[in-house]
């Protein structure tokens, strides 16, 4: 599904954000991406969503080399990837419904079909009753879940999340992770970047750890396995 092949990314000025990173995420697999701030988590996600291009190496999704994607085709690639942002990036002057419907409108859905899908997505994150609200009136956790609904509304095969629980308390974080698990169970590949190591350890999924741009761990987080 998702493959990094000896990917390096350096920025002008010589800062190396990623250093020969290789890993493979299978179809239907769920994994965490951890590391301190500045370890390269965001850069890695930017390479997948084609916000940035790698300096060296190849990023492949479904065996398609992303370096072959020209600029006019980038939007179509992004439609296949659901992205959840740390600061959720909702459109604050539009209702929850409009926010979640945005990817569908972009793809040309309309009418009943669109309404059905938006309601299904909001139902999955448990916010069906907030469909007519403005995002400002929602709590932080609810806003984040609206962001998740928007990312999954067009049923992308790959889901990326960047610090989805960054601003949430542990209980809400657990709820959000459950939502991701639910999507994973219906066959969606999920990659969650987070620095919440405790949460990662409790969830017992494959964990990729970055440190100063290098991949230092691929597998379960061993040291967190001990009972607290």
């Amino acid at each position: 599904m998702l493959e990094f092949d000896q990917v390096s990314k350096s920025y002008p000025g010589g800062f190396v954000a990623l250093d020969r990173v290789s890993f493979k995420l299978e179809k239907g697999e769920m994994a965490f991406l951890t590391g301190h701030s500045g370890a390269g988590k965001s850069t890695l996600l930017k390479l997948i969503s084609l916000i940035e291009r790698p300096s060296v190496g190849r990023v492949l999704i479904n065996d398609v080399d992303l370096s072959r994607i020209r600029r006019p085709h980038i939007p179509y690639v992004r439609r296949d990837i659901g992205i959840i942002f740390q600061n959720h990036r909702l459109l604050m002057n539009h209702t929850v419904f409009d926010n979640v419907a945005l990817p569908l409108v972009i793809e040309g859905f309309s009418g009943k079909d669109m309404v059905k899908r938006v309601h299904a997505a909001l139902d999955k994150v448990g916010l069906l009753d907030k469909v007519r609200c403005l995002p400002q009136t929602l709590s932080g956790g609810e806003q984040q879940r609206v962001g998740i609904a928007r990312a999954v509304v067009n049923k992308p095969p790959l889901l990326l999340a960047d610090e989805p629980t960054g601003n949430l308390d542990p209980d809400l974080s657990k709820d959000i992770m459950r939502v991701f698990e639910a999507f994973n169970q219906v066959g969606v590949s999920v990659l969650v970047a987070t620095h919440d190591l405790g949460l990662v350890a409790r969830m017992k999924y494959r964990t990729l750890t970055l440190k100063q741009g290098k991949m230092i761990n691929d597998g379960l987080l061993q040291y967190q396995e001990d009972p607290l």
Partner: protein
Amino acid sequence: MSILFSGRVSSGASAHKISFGRRFIMFWVNHVRQALFSLGELWRTPSASILTIGVLGVSLTLPATLHLLVKNVQQVSDSFTQAAEISLFIKDGTDDRQINSLLKILQADNDIARVTHISKQQALDEFADVSGFGAALTYLTDNPLPDVLLVLPKNTSAGSARQLLERLSKERIVEFGKLDIDWLTRLDAIVGLLRQAVLVIAILLLGAVLLIIGNTIRLSIMSKKDEIEVMKLVGATDAFIQRPFLYSGVWFGVFGGLLAFLIVEAMLWWLQGAIGSVTSLYDSDFRLMAFSVTEFFSLMLLAVLLGLTGSYLSVRRHISAIEPTGP
């Protein structure tokens, strides 16, 4: 269309194998919806929209007014062209037989539409009537006025009328011919100059309009930078993002054009009385011509095209420049 996952059905239209006809209808329904949405956006930012529409309307008013001015002046000069009449003064002492034979020859001439003979006596009677010298003229021992043939050329343009005049002046019994057309050529030249000036002014103003609309759209793009970034991140193409802005440009054009039309109409209405009193003094049947339907639609089309072009220029530069910086 999915590039990465060939089997994935992602478009709303292809998901249900909708027929071509229905898709065609949906295409237009979507466009109408977006057009109305853009109209709503203008409504939500009334002050900025009104300013832009006002500038656009006033800028279009000037060329439109000048165009009407040229059109009306031309109407005046056209009606005078009808009077491009050649007067042939007959030599004194020519007898009626000679005059009548010339009259016949001229009537048969292909270049001449009409010939009228005004005899000495007729001329004197008319002069006595019009001049008010009635009584005084009776003291004249003989009639000093010559016979006159009034010749109306078929082709009333200045050049060909002058050629005809030269030819007719060579007739043996013609003393000299007169064609009062110099002032007409001058008027033509002035109208031509005016038309050139209108063109130059119009081009300058339309250029200004393009810049104004471009700038308004640029500001509105900048104010929606975040929204555009999010849309790009969830897979919107540049074409999709720019469409509402293009529609805003079209709406600016529509309202600006209407405003210009209304201003010009108001101006005409205002001037109607003044012009009426002037023309009645000159005993003329001149009537101020307003916009024809074609001209109205040309004005609207021009305004809409300006709005669209202005916003397109702005949108093309600024929307591709906004790139999401990160998830």
